[in-house]
């Protein structure tokens, strides 16, 4: 990674663990709970957020010197909403089944606080290149949590990973059964809570 300086590396790496948008800032919880029943939806959602967040950050950063301060939030939302609609349209055209499962949650990326938050807090002050990296970093940080949560929910809730059955039939015959709670939202809350706890212990985050 010698191509990128230490400082830029931080922009990309910090949001992954130490300043994770879900773990540390508790943003984007809604979708993290809703679409983590299965891993494939979580992965597609991650890709969608990477696309939207990196591009919205870049575009906002390009425009930052021209955006009138009074209407900046409106401009940001217009850009974000357009990108999200494009993503949604592409998913409907090329990944119909997954887009059906994600249903409203692709559209709800617009209201995902991470996207607007990064535009306001980072892209408005930094150059397009850095803003792009910040977008990718934060989207990945969000995605890692999504994928970890969905891994446990799918494995323990449905006995499969990416749709392939993992728990052998013999285990079911011997009396093992899937934990139904994990398929429902409360199960996601519990898993997410545990992950936030672990993440905060590792990165030593303390609430003031």
């Amino acid at each position, binding site marked *: 990674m010698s191509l990128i300086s230490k400082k830029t590396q931080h922009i990309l790496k910090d949001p992954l663990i130490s300043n994770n948008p879900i773990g540390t800032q508790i943003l984007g919880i809604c979708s993290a709970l809703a679409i983590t029943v299965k891993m494939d939806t979580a992965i597609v959602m991650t890709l969608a957020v990477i696309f939207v967040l990196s591009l919205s950050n870049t575009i906002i950063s390009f425009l930052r010197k021209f955006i*009138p301060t009074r209407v900046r939030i409106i401009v940001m939302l217009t850009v974000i909403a*357009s990108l999200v609609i494009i993503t949604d*349209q592409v998913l409907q*055209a090329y990944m*119909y089944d997954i887009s059906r499962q994600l249903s409203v949650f692709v559209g709800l990326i617009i209201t995902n606080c991470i996207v607007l938050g990064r535009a306001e807090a980072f892209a408005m002050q930094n150059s397009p290149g850095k803003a792009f990296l910040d977008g990718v970093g934060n989207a990945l940080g969000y995605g890692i949590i999504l994928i970890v949560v969905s891994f446990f929910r799918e494995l323990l809730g449905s006995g499969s990973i990416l749709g392939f059955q993992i728990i052998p039939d013999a285990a079911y015959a011997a009396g093992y059964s899937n934990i139904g709670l994990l398929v*429902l939202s409360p199960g996601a809350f519990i898993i997410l809570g545990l992950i936030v706890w672990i993440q905060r212990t590792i990165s030593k985050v303390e609430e003031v």
Partner: protein
Amino acid sequence: MRSNTYTLLFMSTITIVLGFLLSITATTLKDRQERNVENDIKKNILKCLNIPEERDQKLSADVIQNLFTENITGIVVDYSGNTLRELERGELAPKRKDQLPIYTYKVNATIKGYAIPISGKGLWSTIYGYLALEPDGNSVKGITFYKHGETPGLGGEIEKEWFTSNFVGKRIADMKGNLIGIEVVKGKADPGDPHQVDGISGSTLTCKGLTRFLKEDLERYDPFFNSIRGVTE
């Protein structure tokens, strides 16, 4: 602070540029999206009619298209059971509410089954699906649900094979040919009753809704199926 004129101009430019981008995306992808929706409907009609018979394989869009055109012909009936016309090529469902589509599964001109669309309120959402009947117009050949917003793991289980397979072989009418419908009971169904299937525990309201709208839809189609039942018995 920038002037009002600047702000207005800036906003207009942004809106026009982004609006332009969006309309390009929407128009270029429209055909593909409509094809996907159509394919999904066809896939579900085929599935409830049990075509192809081995279930496990994933069907590509082309295979679905071919299977559909080879096996399925559609007719439109009215509330009194009169056949109005055939469904045109590429037309999946008539737009008018008083025209009811029936998809007929034929092999070498012999009718193997009928499929009709069913829909109605569950607990949280409108459930959409297809019900297939055997050529006798009475026994259930299959049922699928393709769109709903019921609780995953509870009411959402209606789309699962273990639930839908219970319907196969059940009968919608009694010996005299009067429509009874199929009741999704709370708990276990009476094995001797051809009009009952097992319910899903924890989703009584979804099941009640399902029982109700299944009956309503079948009543609408009953003049047609009643005439078929008369012929075979």
